[in-house]
Every structure is written in C-alpha cells, then in structure tokens.
C-alpha cells in the first residue's frame, strides 16, 4: 500500500540554524500539506501546496518558513533560522485527485528539537 514517508525521523539542531524536513508524498497525489504538533498541544496547519505553488498558509507560516517540490517527488519544508519554539513534530500529508482529495494521508512525522 502506498504511503507518505518523511526523513529524518528526528532532527536536533541549534537555535538559529537552518533545517530542511523532507517528505515523499504518495506518487499520484497532487495536494501536499505540512502540519505541526507542539508536544501536548493540538495539531496546527502550516501550509498547503498545489500545482507548484502555495495555495494556503497559516499565520504560523511566516518568512522563516518555505516549501518546495524540487524534483517532482520530494516535498520539503525549510525553516531558515530555527527558534526554540519551533520544536515540534512536523507532519507531511498528501491527498489525491479531485474526487478523493479530501482524504489526507499522513507521514510518520519528523520530531524537530531546537536547542
């Protein structure tokens, strides 16, 4: 069964460093998402991406964040200068064609720890 994969599973970084979180969505999916979950808190939407551009972003997704689909398979989230409060689980999700695009399939997450 196809699945969304994410690497790395755990990333530890120093405050101020840049990190790139990687996701490989399900191959025929067209819509891609990033969510984050700070420990003990609810899941929060960051950004959605379709047709090689951002379709929607939340207030959290400020200038420090960017997304890219560099090669048609990977979908990356970059945080330019990490802050302590960026420590969280980051989930990538993808969804398919119009009929079923409402169902999002999630990757296993990347735990980001900023020291």
């Amino acid at each position, binding site marked *: 069964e196809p699945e969304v994969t994410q690497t790395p599973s755990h990333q530890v970084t120093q405050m101020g460093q840049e990190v790139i979180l990687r996701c490989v969505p399900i191959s025929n999916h067209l819509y891609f998402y990033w969510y984050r979950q700070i420990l003990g808190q*609810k899941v929060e939407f960051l950004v959605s991406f379709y047709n090689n551009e951002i379709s929607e972003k939340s207030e959290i997704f400020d200038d420090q964040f960017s997304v890219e689909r560099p090669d048609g398979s990977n979908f990356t989230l970059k945080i330019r200068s990490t802050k302590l409060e960026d420590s969280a689980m980051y*989930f990538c999700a993808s969804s398919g064609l119009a009929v079923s695009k*409402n169902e999002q399939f*999630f990757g*296993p997450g990347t*735990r980001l720890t900023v020291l």
Partner: protein
Amino acid sequence: AQTVTQSQPEMSVQEAETVTLSCTYDTSESNYYLFWYKQPPSRQMILVIRQEAYKQQNATENRFSVNFQKAAKSFSLKISDSQLGDTAMYFCAFQSMDSNYQLIWGAGTKLIIKP
C-alpha cells in the same frame, strides 16, 4: 473561523467495553467533512473514520462508528468491543470544502484501554 472542541482530555475503559469520545465544532458552512484520527505512541497519524456532512447516514468502520448530529454540530466516535491496541490519542478534525482542504483539529482525547 471554524473551531473544533474535544471536551474530554482523557478517558479510560476496560478492554471489551464500549467507549464514546465527544467532539463538537463550529462552522457557518454547509459542505464539509469530519474525521477522527488515531495517534498511537508512535505518533503516526492514522485515519479512523470520516463523515461527509451532506450524508445523513452515520459512517461505520468495523468497531468504529460515529454519531453525526449536523444541527447540533456534534460528531462523536463510538468504539465497540475496545481492544488494548485502541490505546492512543484520538483527534477530531474538520475540513472545509471551501478553504483548500486544510484540516482544523481538536485538542485530542487520550484513550486508555485497561486489560
């Protein structure tokens, strides 16, 4: 803006019992989807069940069923014959059909199944 409320931070039942998790939401829209996701200790987000708002019939998936009350904006999850493997965080999520399909999440309910 849409909101999702899960009023039970934690619940605990004996194995084989039935348990109901509550979820209410607020929206002015008429077309949307509702979901229950399960997050076990591995932190993978797994879809349990979904409901289309235009359908009056409650969704069921094996031991999982929902009680969808559109007028009351209520969407509870019933787990029958609970099993130890059902121990997890359960998140209720709302998805508008008008906003690029981002998911709006509740705070979650921690469900513990006791042997």
